[in-house]
């Protein structure tokens, strides 16, 4: 039986530190999708898709003034045997199959990149070691395009690691063949001045499973737009995210899962901690269930833990349902301050305050950290959390 539920947006958010607003138009952008930047007017900041973003800090990615410098980013791919790694030009037929740019910066990236990297895991190839993609900023402006493609029944884990300093706009396509299983961990561990705006397009094949783990720590502005559509029935998408937003940082994650095919599943869970003045996290979680997508099962959740005064969260879950013949659909968003009662309880057992805070924040992220499944990344992530907390306590 169909069972749709719609939890009122903002019902559990705390007034002064969180703003939740109904976003009925979020799946309908101010211009239709296009590969050509000329099809998008320069945003002025009041558009639905730009209203939370500090355009003046995008270093010209949004208005055509950011010119690629040639020493923007260095991309290094390390792949186990059996995987094909290629660098291709703009005319490669495999480009753009997973999705079309939906905003000006994504279209700018598509119109401007010169070379794309294509990583292909042939059908029925099951990898036991992760593919590692290192994207290192060399201090310039860059436009990028990446394709990760898995043939039918192939299985792979891909770790994309962003470090260094750059002004980067990119599109990343994930193409999953029938029955394929792909886990992608995208780590944004940029230096503090970096600007990173990217659209991630996943096209999930019939009975395929896509798992995305987005981990954002660094950068001045990081704005990611993970999107999922299904190429056949029985597909599953799990989208997990963790962010730790520090003083002055703007970290924005905008998700859209389009259930365009019957009997597919999606589960979205993003958690963030914030600390410091002008720390700003934005989470937009859109799920669209089209009329033909009967039997859809979807849930999306965002939780934020505000550690200090002066931080701001905008969390906007949005569910549009065009058919009642679904298994389930729901969403939840909650933003809370660090719980003083938890702190008191732990300290009353002799645990010093900084240690108690560390326990609570690690606990907050624990269930998502476990989802990563790549040991060295999990450890690095936990170390990073400790480092951030040390900075705040010290």
């Amino acid at each position, binding site marked *: 039986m169909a069972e749709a539920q719609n939890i009122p947006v903002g019902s559990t958010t705390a007034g002064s530190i969180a703003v939740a607003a109904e976003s009925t138009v979020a799946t309908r952008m101010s211009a239709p999708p296009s590969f050509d930047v000329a099809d998008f007017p320069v945003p002025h900041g009041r558009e639905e898709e730009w209203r939370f973003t500090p355009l003046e800090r995008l270093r010209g990615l949004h208005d055509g003034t950011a010119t690629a410098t040639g020493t923007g980013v260095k991309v290094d791919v390390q792949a186990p045997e059996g995987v094909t790694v290629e660098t291709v030009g703009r005319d490669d037929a495999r480009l753009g199959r997973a999705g079309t740019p939906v905003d000006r910066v994504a279209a700018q990236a598509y119109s401007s990149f010169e070379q794309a990297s294509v990583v292909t895991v042939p059908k029925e190839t099951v990898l036991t070691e992760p593919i590692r993609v290192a994207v290192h900023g060399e201090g310039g402006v860059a436009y990028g395009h990446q394709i990760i493609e898995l043939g039918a029944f192939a299985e792979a884990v891909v770790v994309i690691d962003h470090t260094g300093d750059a002004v980067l706009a990119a599109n990343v396509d994930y193409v999953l063949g029938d029955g394929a299983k792909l886990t992608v961990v995208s780590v944004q561990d940029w230096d503090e001045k970096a600007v990173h705006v990217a659209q991630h397009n996943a096209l999930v094949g019939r009975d395929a499973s896509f798992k995305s783990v987005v981990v954002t720590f660094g950068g001045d502005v990081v704005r990611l737009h993970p999107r999922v559509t299904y190429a056949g029935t029985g597909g599953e998408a799990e989208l997990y995210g963790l962010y730790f937003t520090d003083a002055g940082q703007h970290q924005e994650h905008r998700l859209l899962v389009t259930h365009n095919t019957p009997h597919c599943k999606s589960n979205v869970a993003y958690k963030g901690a914030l600390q410091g003045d002008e720390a700003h996290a934005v989470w937009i979680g859109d799920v669209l269930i089209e009329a033909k997508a009967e039997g859809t099962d979807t849930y999306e959740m965002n939780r934020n833990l505000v550690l200090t005064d002066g931080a701001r969260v905008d969390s906007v879950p949005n569910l549009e349902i065009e058919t009642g013949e679904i298994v389930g659909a729901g969403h939840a968003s909650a933003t809370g301050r660090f*719980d*003083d*009662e*938890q702190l*008191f*309880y*732990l*300290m*009353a*057992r*002799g*645990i*010093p*305050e900084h*240690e*108690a805070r560390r*326990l*609570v924040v*690690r*606990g*907050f*992220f*624990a*269930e998502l950290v476990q989802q990563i499944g790549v040991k060295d990344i999990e450890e690095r992530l936990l170390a990073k959390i400790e480092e951030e907390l040390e900075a705040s306590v010290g």
Partner: protein
Amino acid sequence: MATLEIRDLHVTVEADNATKEILKGVDLTVKQGETHAIMGPNGSGKSTLAYSLAGHPKYTITGGTVLLDGEDVLEMSVDERARAGLFLAMQYPVEVPGVSVSNFLRTSATAIRGEAPKLRTWVKEVKETMERLHMDPSFAERNVNEGFSGGEKKRHEILQLELLKPKIAVLDETDSGLDVDALRIVSEGVNRVRETGEVGTLLITHYTRILRYIKPDHVHVFAGGRIVESGGPELADKLESEGYEAYTKGGASE
């Protein structure tokens, strides 16, 4: 011998934009090896006394002193008090999502003892203590207080009491919400700690029921923010038959 000395303790709390005095001059001395029961009607300030001793930020000390072996407790932070040997078993223990009981216990024991307990003996110690409290081993892998029943929360508090071995233990309504079986198990845990002779116990309760399992040396009646009568175990019998009416009539109850 460890001694907790509370002298003329005054405590206020902010409520509805007003400052309200809850404790109005509490005097009490608890020595290692002794068990004191503090009994009183709802709203008399019993729990405020417990939380003030532990250092909860909600309460403001406006007068008086609290000394543990001559050291000024009121000058210590919450964690320092615990490390000095003060333990509060809470009436409403809070959930700490994502932090397992085993991780929590070990972190706490490390802080209290000043060094990490040796892993092998520690695991055995926790296991045996849990068995005595009729706690399933799987309990250690659950998150602190998350989804615990009322009885599980109280057993978890007493588990900590047994493992942390404080000098002074304040048990805030540990008996409330427990059925007879759970009350017996929890009381046995408290008695094991008492029998070592190394802990002074301050048992705060509304009911006389728990005193059938945990025999106090001293009984104090708490009303209107202070101790209004003190005596031996016979005072509990009097309260059992007569209730608190004699102490609340004068409008002293807050």
